[in-house]
């Protein structure tokens, strides 16, 4: 029965060399790419490796990363959430409108977060109860929410937000010798929370199971519908939080804000190794994916790369990063 040749091959795979181990670990590959970029920019520009710039970059991708954590959970669970960009804009508008109407910061933020989560819940409901494909359900939702953004604001951005709200996005927290932007800290906190949820809880295990093989998961007694409801709700909540942070950083809630950000958010997850087929990936990957894209944008400006060619450079890096990852998977 047992094929001796096969056995020896398995035997070999059980004792990988250190090099193979490193290459097998996707995170380490990503970190290498990241470090290479940082090193290159540190050498070629005098401005990249300054505390101001690093923290600017951290803040700039924090909301994309936070939304990407939720997105990663959805994608790992076998779905996709196209409504996250619109959701970001809408939650920002809800919070801003409430603040302008005189509500307290806490109340406005909490209500906006609930709205974000409710939108995510609706997505989850459509996917799990009416069996709409996630692509269609969230594509429709993306448009519906964007319409609400325009409709409620008549196309005008909402301004004049109180200083106590701008604190969320504009303040820096002193930590050792640095002043770290609050959104970046919130991002790290949510990365840890998402990590614990995905890797250390039964629910997280179920998310991977549903995304890996929904049929097998349901046979083994996992309630797939409930898992989907939870991940979509979380995705909505995280996108909402990202939108609120972005709004408070800019001090304005525009109905056109975050247009097309869903693609950045999905790209961050995918660059970070989250498989679009589901069942595979991690939030740390999504975090690094978001970082890679923002560092690239930052680099193009610092290096004086012509603006007209920047989209091409970003596209090439997205493809390149995923290609390296695919090569790694096949080879090792």
């Amino acid at each position, binding site marked *: 029965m047992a094929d001796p040749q096969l056995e020896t091959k398995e035997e070999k795979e059980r004792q990988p060399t250190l090099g193979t181990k490193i290459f097998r670990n996707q995170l380490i590959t990503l970190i290498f790419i990241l470090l290479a970029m940082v090193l290159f920019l540190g050498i070629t*520009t005098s*401005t990249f490796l*300054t505390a*101001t*710039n690093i923290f*600017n970059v951290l803040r*700039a991708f924090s909301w994309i990363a936070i939304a990407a954590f939720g997105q990663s959970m959805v994608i790992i669970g076998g779905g996709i959430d196209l409504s996250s960009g619109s959701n970001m804009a809408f939650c920002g508008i809800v919070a801003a409108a409430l603040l302008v109407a005189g509500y307290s910061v806490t109340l406005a933020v909490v209500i906006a977060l609930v709205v974000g989560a409710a939108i995510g819940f609706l997505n989850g409901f459509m996917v799990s109860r009416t069996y709409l494909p996630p692509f269609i359900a969230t594509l429709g939702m993306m448009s519906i929410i*964007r*319409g609400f953004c*325009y409709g409620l604001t*008549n*196309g*005008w*951005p909402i*301004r004049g*937000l109180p200083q106590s709200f*701008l604190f969320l996005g*504009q303040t820096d927290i002193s930590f050792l010798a640095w002043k770290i932007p609050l959104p970046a800290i919130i991002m790290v906190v949510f990365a840890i929370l998402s990590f614990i949820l995905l890797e250390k809880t039964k629910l997280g295990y179920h998310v991977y199971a549903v995304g890996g093989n929904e049929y097998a998961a349901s046979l083994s007694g996992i309630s797939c519908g409930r898992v989907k409801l939870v991940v979509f709700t979380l995705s909505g909540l995280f996108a909402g939080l990202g939108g609120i942070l*972005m709004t408070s*950083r*800019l*001090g*304005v809630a*525009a*109905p*056109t*804000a*975050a*247009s097309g950000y869903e693609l950045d958010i999905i790209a961050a997850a995918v660059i970070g190794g989250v498989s679009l087929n589901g069942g595979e990936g991690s939030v740390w990957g999504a975090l690094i994916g978001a970082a890679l894209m923002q560092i690239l*944008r*930052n680099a193009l*400006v*610092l290096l*004086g790369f*012509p*603006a*007209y060619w*920047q989209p091409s450079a970003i596209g090439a890096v997205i493809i390149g990063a995923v290609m390296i990852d695919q090569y790694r998977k096949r080879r090792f």
Partner: protein
Amino acid sequence: MRRGFTWILIVTLLLALVLLGGTASAEKYTFAWIPKALNNPVFELGREGAFQKAKELTEQTPDEVEVLYVGSVASDAAEQARVVEDVVARGVDGIAISCNDPTALIDVINKAVDAGIPVMCFDADSPDSKRFTYLGVSNYDGGKAAADLLIRYMGTEGKVALLTGVPGALNLEERIRGFKDGIKDYPGIEIVTTVACYDDINQGVQVVEETMQAYPDLDGWFFVGIWPLFAGRGSMPLWEEAAKSGRCKTVAFDTLPEELEYLKDGFLVGLVGQKYWGWGYDSIQILYDYIVNEQEFPDWIDSGMDIVTIHNVDAMIEAWNTQDFTKPLPPPFPEE
């Protein structure tokens, strides 16, 4: 006898109706006013101007004028073409349109004209179509005016950066071309970089700050549109510090209230703006004169440009507060 009386009554009434309809010249005109996009606030102001003119015409002339405000939500030529077709199918008496693309709209504009509906363009033209006139500014001249403003405040030497929206957008490219021609004669002025924000406030704020880091000794900025200025105070600390201290002079396009505040507080030195309100107010008058009074119009009507500096910013703020843009703006440089 009774029946005969009823008949006479009916016939009299009918005659009276026909006579009334024939003698009174009260006509109802519906003009479609189509912006580039519904999600761009400057068109809201144009719409107000259009409604204002319609109200005035209805009050001051025997006719009744109604404005139909329709458009695609986002700037999209294909969507806009569909909107024009819908408006033609619905039946209107005239169309004023700001074209998302000069070529893409030719076909539908010509179809409307062939169907007997006169079309004019405002803000963005489609010169090869059968539209009867274009009300707008030359973006090229606007760019030149911006260069002139910057030189007045910055001097004839310095490092300048440009912020644009979507690279390739015709109006923005024209402004940049005008700006570059405006500084051509001053070899001391160097454009060190051009950055793009893809019409996104967040990205605009980000690239301005990054540019301030890359070129800490920057002397001037030309914001080809308002984008980063929509963000609140404190969102661009590096730029704000440089601008407020007077080290870096910034000139921007458009004259929206957000920018006027920035100018009044000393962050901006000058603004070059189109007359958004006039886009609506004047175009409805032109359509009315063309159709009702059969007035002839030249191929291009210059709508003029507002130049705002610290000397006349208050008048502009006043105009916004009262929504009355009919008064001419005081000169930007009164000493001349």
